[in-house]
């Protein structure tokens, strides 16, 4: 088992990271608007938008360096 884990290909790591961030993106948008809105109610106070920008940035980083 340990031998199998030690021999897993390096490329898989980047794909798993990208996959985790994509899953996180969908999870973020499953949350209802009522949980993330600011008292002001402005569009950009929806922190799901902040999270999406952050995830996009991470996807770009892992894609660039893979």
């Amino acid at each position, binding site marked *: 088992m340990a031998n199998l884990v030690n021999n897993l290909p390096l490329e898989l790591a980047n794909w798993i*990271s990208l996959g985790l961030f994509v899953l*996180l993106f969908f999870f973020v948008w499953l949350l209802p608007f*009522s949980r993330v809105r600011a008292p002001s109610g402005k569009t950009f106070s929806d922190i799901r938008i*902040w999270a999406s920008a952050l995830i996009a940035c991470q996807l770009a*980083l*892992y894609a660039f360096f893979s």
Partner: protein
Amino acid sequence: MHLLDLTVILGYLGLIVLVGFRVSRGVKTAKDFFLAGRSLPWWIIGLSIIGTNIDSNNYVGASGNAYATGLAQANFEWIGAIPAMIIASLIFIPIYWKAGVYSIPEYLGRRYSQSVRLLVALIFTLSGIFVLSIAMYALAITLETYLGWPVVVGVLVSGLVVAVYSISGGLSAVTFTDALQVSIMFGCAIIVAYLGFMEMGGISEFLNRLEAKSPTHLNPYLPANHPDFPWTGVILGLGIVLSPAYWIGSQAILQRTLAAKSQWDASASMMFAAMAKTFVPLLIIFPGILAFVMEAQIENPDMALPWVIKNVLPVGVSGLMFVAIIAALQSTIDSGVNTTALMITRDIRQVLFKQSDDKDDLKIGRALSLCILTIAMIAAPFIEHLGGIYIAVQNMLSLFQGPMLALLCLGALTKFVTPQAGLWTLITGVPLSGVLLFSGMNMLFVAFISFCYALVCLTTLSYWTKPLPLNELHQLTFNWKET
């Protein structure tokens, strides 16, 4: 050291004391002292979170590791932090906020039992004092290296500076000074990156040289058979257990979010911190890689950052970079003092002595802050005599992370886990991690296995024991449809 560098350093110390002292006015209750009167905006808290998170190990150690292994070190800031910060922001911080607690042990006390609260507070307090001593020692060593001050003098000066604002101003002074310190750190990082790229002839030339010298330095992961940071361990241990345990359960980090003026500010502060965290590698990884590309002649990788300061930065900017390192350490110390004082004042004292009075809490909190800082100052010079022991002790403390994360996740996301199951999972999970670690298993895999064990133990024991009444759980657990 050049006179201009010295002026920059003294100017910084004066500015921190001034800002901290000015913010200190208006602390009248324990809530003001420990939670800044629940009045802080998201951006101040976000910067303070980053200040608390970055310590000497990040600055010197991460630069050294980046010199030796390359970009893989950045995983501690990316996959090893960002997903956990997003989940903390959207799921856990609203729950803590709704529960109206001061601390994570208090939340666990309400969700499970007062025994769990006491146990967690004791572990957090002991580790907090230990980490403070290490940070104090690291700060003194930095002052000795650059200014030639003896360790005892460095400990005294840095302790006094922190004491001036953190004891009088509490969390409010700590967060404002942290925000200033982080701004200085990022300012320095931009200057170092600019000068580094200019020295190399531009970003593309820098990347070309790095790729020609060592292509693996540009890979964000290391092979699965790497002895220290195999990618499998980084994703399973760091990404799934250690990082969420830190961002969801660290009192020093989450105390700031509980001081926000609204629940939205609390969640937004963590999201803003995550955005800043994306760029932290520029601060702590880039200098190491720059030293590697510039073929620095250094004896060990940890000398990468001092080499960059000495050989790349002009006079004045090197003083500012030195200030950034002091700032990283100071923000760790001031946060640790306030956090540890809070847990002794409220979590340990309230459970053991059944005492809770706001005016007493404020007096005791201030007195304890002074005591904790004094203990850390006395212990700091002895840290160097511990040798490798303190690394072992830090490993021991991190054994707690797997069971702790399981308690927080199942406690906050489900209603079926019981107080008895929580206590026994904690009591059995930590020794299990110890056995695995001493058997020679990599720490990252120990964290993952102890987390899985704690999930199974907590679930199984909960079927045979009695849960809390549903009306008590309503305020303490996640509700998907709640507005």
